[in-house]
């Protein structure tokens, strides 16, 4: 570990923080620009001019936007996420359980799909041009091309309606045993794995194939190395950067992009919460959800970049 690495990692973190600030700015002002006056919406039928004016003052809505932005940002930083407009509960209460649910689903999906995708990608690269490679490649392309709602509804139709093996809806809160966990998570996990694995398989295969074509892998072959050794010792360490990035990009989808899956399986996750918040014009909730998605995305991408920096021997 030398100063060059430290400074690179530090720079990367700085970029992440600046990005986060810019995004928070965009999120705040985008929600501000939504049509309709918040006070009027909240008061609904009781919106007399006096009541509206009173509420506006109470909610600091008359302050300049930039001031409200800074106050909001300060609240976020100190853990005060605000009060939901829709049901007057603290946002943190609303999000808490949902966020854990989403994380659970993401974790289970990642646990399944990452090892499977890496194995498929690497073995396809090793056996490039073989029947196995062609089958894997064709299937991944097919999976990429099929939209996830199609996969999800087909899964419901087959496993829940015809075969009646699995429940059509997933209530994560009712899980008490491992068997139940499998039953509840099976369909959403399968659907999500389909969506995110395909990309990872393709990227892994491409990265490994590229390094397998390098002279140093040929050199390993001419030293008498086995195929396994060539791939694991020589090709893979040098393909790590792009692979980690592909994984990070795919996983980031698991938090923000799962709305369709959560809706179809009625899974109580955070993406569904956000969509409900949009329906009820619950601005603080929308803002917080957006910030959580952004944070998760940035966290994964930054982590991938840092791993790529650390795995580059030229910087060691």
């Amino acid at each position, binding site marked *: 570990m030398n100063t060059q690495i430290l400074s690179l990692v530090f720079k990367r973190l700085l970029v992440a923080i600046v990005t986060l600030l810019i995004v928070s700015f965009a999120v705040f002002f985008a929600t501000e620009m939504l049509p309709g006056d918040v006070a009027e919406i909240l008061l609904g039928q009781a919106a007399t001019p006096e009541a509206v004016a009173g509420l506006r003052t109470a909610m600091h809505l008359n302050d300049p936007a930039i001031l409200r932005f800074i106050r909001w940002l300060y609240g976020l930083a100190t853990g005060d996420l605000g009060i939901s407009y829709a049901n007057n509960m603290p946002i943190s209460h609303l999000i808490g359980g949902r966020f854990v649910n989403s994380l659970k689903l993401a974790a289970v999906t990642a646990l399944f799909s990452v090892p499977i995708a890496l194995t498929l990608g690497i073995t396809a690269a090793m056996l490039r041009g073989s029947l196995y490679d062609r089958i894997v490649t064709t299937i991944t392309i097919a999976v990429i091309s099929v939209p996830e709602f199609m996969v999800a509804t087909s899964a419901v139709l087959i496993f829940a309606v015809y075969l009646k093996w699995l429940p059509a809806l997933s209530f994560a809160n009712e899980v008490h045993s491992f068997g139940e966990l499998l039953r509840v998570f099976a369909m959403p996990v399968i659907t999500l794995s389909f969506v995110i694995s395909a990309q990872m398989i393709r990227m892994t295969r491409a990265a490994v194939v590229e390094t397998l074509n*390098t*002279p*140093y892998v*040929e*050199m*390993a*072959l*001419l*030293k*008498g*190395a*086995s195929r396994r*050794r060539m791939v694991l*010792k*020589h090709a893979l*360490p*040098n393909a790590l950067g792009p692979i980690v990035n592909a994984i990070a990009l795919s996983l980031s989808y698991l938090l923000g992009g799962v709305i369709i899956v959560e809706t179809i399986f009625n899974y109580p996750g955070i993406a569904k919460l956000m969509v409900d918040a949009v329906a009820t014009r619950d601005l603080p909730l929308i803002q917080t959800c957006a910030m959580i998605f952004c944070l998760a995305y940035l966290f994964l991408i930054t982590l991938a970049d840092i791993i790529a920096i650390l*795995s580059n*021997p*030229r910087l*060691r």
Partner: protein
Amino acid sequence: MANLVEIRDLKVEAKTDSGRTVEIIRGVSFDIAEGEIVALIGESGSGKTTIALTLMGYARAGCRISKGSVLFADKDMAAISEKSRASMRGTKVAYVPQSAAAAFNPAQTIMEQVIEVARIHKLMPMDEARVRAVDLFRALALPNPDTIGSRYPHQVSGGQLQRLSAAMALIGNPKLVIFDEPTTALDVTTQIEVLRAFKSVMKKKGIGGVYVSHDLAVVAQIADRILVLKNGEVQEIGTTAQILSAPKHPYTRELLGAFKPASYASHVKAADASSKVPILEVHDVVAGYGPLKSNGQPTILALKSVNLKLEQGRNLGIIGESGCGKSTLARVIAGILPPFSGSVCFDGKELSADARGRTRDELRKLQIVFQFADTALNPAKSISDIVGRPLAFYHGMGGGDREARIDQLLDMVHLPRALKHRQPSELSGGQKQRVNLARALAAEPQLILCDEITSALDTVVAAAIIDLLKELQRELGLSYVFISHDLSVVQAICDEIAVMYAGEKVAQMPPSAMGSQDSHPYSRLLFSSVPKLDPAWLDSLERDPELVRAFSKL
């Protein structure tokens, strides 16, 4: 002596992109005795590397050994299973690659890769392998043999990597080592050290070798026998002395002939020329790369105050090793890289530092031809588009005029007119370089900057390009600035040679004065390092160790 290797009627097929099968090795047979070094020599595409790799039972992707046998210690490498081949690789027969820089895995330490052969084949305990590796580093005259193994490949120089890759090959105690152009990517002064190290280790251990190269002079120093190849067929086999002194096959004679270019005599005498205004003058040019320092100077200086002068109709050669700034100088003259200070005068007028500030006529008179013809030609355009572009740009030619002029230009560079409608990928390396020249000529320049234009070409093809340049000069009265690391090429065409070292011009002299005792020490070192066709040259060569130390990047 028993034969270690017997190759009989070897044929290798390759599949082209279009799916056709082409025979690239057409029935090659030869033997290698134990402890003997056989050189495979020929131009690119002659199949020398392909043959060498069959000794390890390996054919590159798309290729396949289709017929014949490769007996190595009584085992047919072409017929045995992949597993038994793998067990021979590294232990019985080992490989030293052309570019060691690419053949080392960037993610592992050098030691880890050098002893990998011992690890794969479980030859010895790892500690013993490490001790052995350090011994080999010492035998190969590497600096800091005890610690160099713990570095990563990017932390050592090219010459060192090449010797380290030899250590990697020798660790398994092989009977035969394949050297695949191991010194081609090195500078001449480095090449000598590497050749010497190889030769002494091979002789001491009595290891047999296959030395693949296109350079007869290098091969003459190390090989016992030479095999001359062309188009996948053996042209001639003989002892080194016989091939060099009494070649039988016309192709061998051609190769030898290309090696000794006739020395150049300018048709413009120095006395005549000095009375005229110099066509090119470079004054105190300082240039470099990287972020600018507070005084506006770049962090990495590639040129430190260079002065040059060239008279109309004469040629200036610029030689030096990689990294000495010779290509940067060409970029400064062409206006691609504006210098930090100094000026470039053309025909008595000062040129703008940046090509964008030069008039169209100034641009026209000064053309540049690049080293890699492949990358300098737009692969999506036809030859007539490529050559016709400057005609339209500088002379506003169109239609029939332009077509006629393109034909003329192709005639000038001795290319058949039928090539007009082809694309660059359908041409050979030499043909592409001719197209490059035709494009420069289309502008009707007075001066052409030739940046290593023959370096990527085979000897015979390069000699033909040099002849073409001379012919064009006689007809059109051009001047050339000829940049190269290859002394013999520069000697063949230049009236004056400027020697560059570490961003400075250390000497300028006529070719005849090269290597004389009163010249600059570095040019003396450079000149003495160029291999000669004499097989005894390397052993008899004595270099002033102080000189080597002073100018060597080892």
